[in-house]
């Protein structure tokens, strides 16, 4: 068994409660992420999704547990883990080129200007912003700003891309076309991605594995759903695939009912937080209704 690129081990986050004691937002979160994999984390607000991402980014410290990247525990932010933030978070006094170049010169401080410029141009072209290099963020639409954020993250050629609901602030049409582009770029470059979302369709289109979290407090990983849709799926025809509704219904069912009552499911059977159950909706046994927790199911290697 090869070592995963990233390994989240026993991660926990607790806050001191008013009047003593502690509130546990999430605990005992274990998750390996392989190189080249696209992992989506879905859960309701308050389950600590963003905290997990911020810990991965090095912007936040967990109350317990570690994150191991390439065999080493992370201790802070790194250029190896690029973040695409929820708001575009571009520096408004810099142009598109300036924003991307700021990232590139951070990664390669000794590159000459021409080389930085050419490198930035390459990624500005990738996100289809050619011609807008010298515009300021205020002159761009929401979708274009988020594209700049993506170009900035890709331009530093990180080992891993972290995305915190990157499309949630966009309108449906823009979101759709950006999802297609992210899928294209990530498949082409075999980029490892960890993304947070609460959009089921987005997760089904983009992710290889969908990690389902229960509601907070004391949230945990309930299940890992493997995407049973074909690798070459696209937004236009994904809903025509035989597994589409099995997968979608499974996810929806989890978010609507099971995420609230997962404690009951845990109590009913053997639940190992280090090895949460893995399901492949649409394959083998029918996925509707969801199998009881103690039923035999495909367990990942």
């Amino acid at each position: 068994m090869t070592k995963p690129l990233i390994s989240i081990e026993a991660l926990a986050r607790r806050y001191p409660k008013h009047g003593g004691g502690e509130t546990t937002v999430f605990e005992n979160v274990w998750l390996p992420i392989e190189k080249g994999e696209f992992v989506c984390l879905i859960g309701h607000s308050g389950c600590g999704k963003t905290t997990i991402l911020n810990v991965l980014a090095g912007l936040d410290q967990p109350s317990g547990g570690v994150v191991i990247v390439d065999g080493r525990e992370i201790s802070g932010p790194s250029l190896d883990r690029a973040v695409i933030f929820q708001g575009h978070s571009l520096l408004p006094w810099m142009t598109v080129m300036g924003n991307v170049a700021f990232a590139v010169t951070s990664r390669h401080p000794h590159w000459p200007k021409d080389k930085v410029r050419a490198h930035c141009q390459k990624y500005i072209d990738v996100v289809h912003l050619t011609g807008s290099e010298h515009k300021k963020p205020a002159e761009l639409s929401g979708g274009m700003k988020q594209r700049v954020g993506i170009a900035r993250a890709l331009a530093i050629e990180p080992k891993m891309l972290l995305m915190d609901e990157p499309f949630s602030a966009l309108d449906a049409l823009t979101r759709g076309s950006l999802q297609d582009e992210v899928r294209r770029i990530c498949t082409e470059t075999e980029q490892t991605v960890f993304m947070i979302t609460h959009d089921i369709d987005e997760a089904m289109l983009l992710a290889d594995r969908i990690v389902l979290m229960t509601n907070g407090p004391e949230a945990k990983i309930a299940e890992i759903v493997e995407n049973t849709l074909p690798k070459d799926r696209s937004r236009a025809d994904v809903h025509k695939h035989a597994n589409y509704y099995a997968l979608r219904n499974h996810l929806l069912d989890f978010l609507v009912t099971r995420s609230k009552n997962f404690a009951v499911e845990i109590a009913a059977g053997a639940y190992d937080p280090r090895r949460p159950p893995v399901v492949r909706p649409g394959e083998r046994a029918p996925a509707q209704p969801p199998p009881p927790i103690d039923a035999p199911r495909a367990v990942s290697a």
Partner: protein
Amino acid sequence: MTRSLSLRAGLLSLAILAGTIAIWHFATLPTAGSAGNVDPEYAALVSGAAAEGQKSTFPTPADVAATLWKHLKDPFYVRGANDQGVGIQLAYSLGRVLIGYLIAAAVAIPLGFLIGMSPLATRALDPFIQILKPISPLAWMPLALYTIKDSGISAIFVIFICSLWPMLINTAFGVASVRKEWLNVAATLEVGALRKAFMVILPAAAPTIMTGMRISIGIAWLVIVAAEMLVGGTGIGYFVWNEWNNLSIGNIITAILLIGLVGMILDVALARAARLVAYRE
């Protein structure tokens, strides 16, 4: 629509100006009948205006215009220590303001930067700033005269102390309220402390810092007149006080107009500079 609005506004401004001058003119018209009532001794004691039988020594708009023209025609003459052109007096004042202001900026902006970066420093220095800020800068004058023993430098010190606080407070506030997400961007890009300060925090806080600088120059120009009335010697404030002693109201009004004009120019210059560092989000 906007053009017609600015046209109408301009016309209204002119009308207000004309109205004010008219009221002023009729209020200060000489009254012929009172000439005989003036005691010749008193007339000799005060100036010619009283002797001529004017209702008051307050000049008419025409008198002031003549005085203004006289000053503007020859602003830089020097006829002894107590008789120098109004341009020279303004230059003295501007010089003091700029020296005190620039020293204050050189202290306040780096210090404000450090205070804004450190929540500890913010809280530790806050009581001092809160107590020192509301002190009228002129209250420092005796202390400055006593320790510095030079009236010119004391005036500069007073300008320094009054321009310090707005710049210090605004810089600290601007630096402390840089958006967290921009700092997160810098952190995930592993940007060094110095590069972060100059490439992220300074541009982000620049508009707030410029607001502080604009408030400061305004206060400095207000304070210099009072400071120069106290220390004397040169400067537009001293000029006003001197002309008060001469009871030359025309000269005082001229000086007041010029003080306003210079203050406006300073403010517009800083507003222009602020536009250079402004950004839209």
